[in-house]
């Protein structure tokens, strides 16, 4: 575990140096560290932001100083507290994770070409038919690695390798909310109308981000996700 400053009011706890060689394990460890830090409620810590291999800790340096005296400096003091909060994974924890497992959420997606603007592009690049692209995308089992970029944007790990397609050279200025895309080896869902460079293959009628709810997102880091193909009619009725 490495702790590095991210400016003077945040730091990054890196739990692994690589993601691709052991995605599941890395994700579990990120989530475990995230939960431990949440529970530890270290004075001065404002919020946490988990990503693929790291958890960022945003803090108020003055509050950290006031609560600790921080003779060794605010950063070292906070790093010390983080290290003592992040105890090694116990056998009990591993058993619990194995027993309970993360929740599985099914996302209905309409893969109609009217929504999947780039189905043809993905098919061409992957040398598959559009039908095969869709079938493969549905077969995959994914996990929410992290949420970011815009509120509620889910980065999903677990895209079947032969579906990987490079991002578009010129990003689109506007992508409709609910669009499901492939960007390199990742797949994800655009929760809001926003610009973006991923290849769009379909659209979900579900609302992924709702600021009036707590939590404001339908999916949370660690969730298991499966896609289910729906017709245009189902799409309209679920909207």
């Amino acid at each position, binding site marked *: 575990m490495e702790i*590095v*400053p*991210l*400016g*003077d*009011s*945040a730091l*990054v706890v*890196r739990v692994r140096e690589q*993601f691709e060689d052991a995605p599941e394990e890395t994700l579990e460890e990120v989530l475990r560290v*995230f939960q431990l830090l949440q529970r530890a409620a270290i004075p001065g810590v*404002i*919020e*946490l*932001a*988990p*990503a*693929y*291999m*790291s958890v*960022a800790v*945003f803090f108020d*340096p*003055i509050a950290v*100083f006031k609560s600790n005296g921080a003779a060794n*400096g*605010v*950063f070292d003091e906070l790093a010390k507290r983080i290290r003592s909060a992040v105890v090694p994974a116990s056998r009990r924890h591993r058993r619990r994770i194995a027993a309970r497992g993360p929740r599985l959420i099914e996302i209905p997606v309409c893969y109609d070409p009217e929504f999947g603007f780039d189905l043809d592009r993905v098919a061409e690049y992957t040398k598959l038919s559009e039908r095969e692209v869709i079938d493969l995308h549905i077969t995959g089992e994914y996990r929410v690695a*992290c*949420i*970011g*970029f*815009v*509120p*509620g*944007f889910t*980065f999903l790990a677990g895209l079947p390798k032969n579906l990987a397609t490079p991002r578009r050279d010129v990003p689109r200025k506007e992508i409709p909310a609910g669009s499901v895309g492939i960007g390199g080896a990742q797949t994800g869902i655009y929760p*809001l109308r*926003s610009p973006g460079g991923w290849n769009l293959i379909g659209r979900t009628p579900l609302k992924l*981000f709702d*600021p*009036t709810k*707590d*939590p*404001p*997102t339908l999916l*949370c*880091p660690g969730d298991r996700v499966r896609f289910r193909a729906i017709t245009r009619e189902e799409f309209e009725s679920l909207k």
Partner: protein
Amino acid sequence: MTAIVQRAGFLTSVQDLGRTGFRQFGVSTSGALDPFALRVANLLVGNDEGAAGLEITLGGLHLRFEDERIVAWCGGEFDVQIGSRALPPGHVAHLQRGDELKFGRAQIGCRCWLAISGGTDVPLVLGSRSTDLRANFGGIEGRALRDGDVVLLARRPGLSPLVTGISRWTAPHDWASRASRHPNLRFLRGVDWSRFDDVTIQRFTQHEFSVSTDSDRMGVRLDGPELKRQDETDLISEAVAPGTIQVPPSGKPILLLGDCQTIGGYPKIAHVITVDLGVAAQLRAGDGVRFFEVSLQDAHRLLMERERDLERFRIGLSLQRG
């Protein structure tokens, strides 16, 4: 209990000190891009320092007040008028019902923060009144102000006004107005500092960068000598923060501000320190900026000194109010 937006200006939005606690869901900080300026303005009018005010970009806002209010603003160099009287930054004005407050065009810098006694009364969304202009929530319907909008104001705090008309006393000058056309920004090394070669580091620390036109509340885009990475490996995305300077493949750095995304994949060469974020928030197209390295200890010391000075100022104000 309202103010009428006669002209909304270029870009005016409701902002408080920002939205925290939802970064794990991808929700950015938003909030006043210079939170310290808003805190000072709020203290001047007798508000809690975190009350929601208005962030005015490049000027043009005209407001008519429907009841008596105390107002103050801090930020760039703007000509601000109440009728025919000028209201300089950091001064306090006692407005009467019907008074009109007009912000001219920004002379130097591009943003300022207006505090109104009582504060702007919009609903809390995810714990904040700030407008998230990218995701369109918070503030007034998640958008910038428009001509004809009615800004609801909360009940005024029970303070006897310190002034009739416009105060002669003022907040410390470098708090009231921080804009410069050629500012220096102090930075800490970024986590990817060592991915850049010596030539690039020299370019970054010794050249002036000019602010390009496509800058906004997400970030300031900079033009200057190309910054090149030594390696071309794809980085795995991780958190970025307001103040982070990232270098996309174009070699043109982007200094992130309060509306920046929560996670980014570009290498981070440096981070502007918190006490200088208010200066960064004033950068506008054509300005030139230079970067100077400081230590993490110095960044924290500067922040604590400023906080101590603000505490003294707060005590001074409350003694004056009696």
